């Protein structure tokens, strides 16, 4: 299991697209991917789960991956979350 605090750069969770992309990224891996914001932890492979969280660019969220490809999963998710997206 890997757990990491990541400061996010993607646009606010209020827009649907970034959350949908993150869910797609998480679904490419067999490992379980969970995201924790304040006292709430959700499955990052679930769109509804991601949309029920509130976070803004510049805030830190905790990402937890667990499974055979946990390292790659963490890398890809960190890459997505920390690379500012245009449009």
């Amino acid at each position, binding site marked *: 299991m890997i757990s990491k605090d990541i400061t996010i750069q993607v646009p606010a969770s209020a827009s649907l697209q970034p959350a949908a992309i993150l869910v797609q990224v998480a*679904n490419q891996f067999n490992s379980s991917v969970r995201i924790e914001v304040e*006292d709430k*932890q*959700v*499955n990052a492979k*679930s*769109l*509804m*789960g991601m949309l*029920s969280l509130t976070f803004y660019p510049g805030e830190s969220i905790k990402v937890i991956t667990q499974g055979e490809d946990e390292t790659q999963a963490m890398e890809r998710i960190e890459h997505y979350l920390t690379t500012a997206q245009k449009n």
Partner: protein
Amino acid sequence: MKYVSNGHYKVKLQKIVDKFRLRCLTRDVNIDHIYIHQSDINRPALQFAGYFEQFDYNRIQLVGKVEYNYLKTHDEAYIREMTTRIFKAGIPCMIFTRGQVPNDLFIEMGNEYGVPVYSTPDSTSSLLSEMNRFLKTELAPRVTIHGVLVDVFGEGVLITGESGIGKSEAALELVKRGHRLVADDVVEIRRTNDDVLVGRAPDVTRYFIELRGIGIINVKTLFGVQSVLDSQNISFMIKLEEWNKDREYDRLGLEEKFEEILGKEVVCHSIPIRPGRNLAIIVETAAANFRQKRMGYNAAQELYDRVSRQMENREPDED
């Protein structure tokens, strides 16, 4: 797997004031930073009598007629001394019930120590129990589970399983069969007392289901108000799994398996998925069977009894 709550919770005093319409007597005290962490409420009778051992100063202090009348039997100096000790201890607030208007001293102390003082026309014991119930819900241990919660024949069925295994499809089919959706994908569960786990959807995703390939649908607008429910107590769990031929699945249902949610054991059926299995009818039957067991009839037990009787009737002298 154990589902545990992370952390303990607090509720803003302002929320309690609004909910119970408490009348503020200390206008100058700022309550923005005051939170309640305890669901219990203290009636400070013993403290008025001068006994301060094990004083629950972090609880809301509720002063009823008895306490206040008792205090009034003492002289001004005594009242001042006890009140100072109570306020100095760091109580979150003090509430006078039955419309009592406290001595100016309480207002003075409240302003001095930054402790708000309130008055309410409500009676002491009913306010105490209502407030206790409210705080228990607000401060209840909670956890968010990845799953679907559906009301089936009045039983809250929590369906869990890996992403993409068909939880939402099962929920949709159940809704089409006349059952009610509580939450899809994200279920917020609170343990409001020892026996009850209450599940609901986060406000943002309430009534929505995500169907892979179709997108988001709103069950309430699509199928009507009769197809949704805001919250439901969890009766049992169904865990959907890929069919694994090396795994033993329950054939009889004589023994029950449990999962622990917030420290409470919940009956859990593991159901193997194969193409063509009608999930909705399995969930429906499980719910009906759960009800029947609770009403005192256990089909597996009866089958067991019949088999035992059959054994007894066939005595060994036969060839």
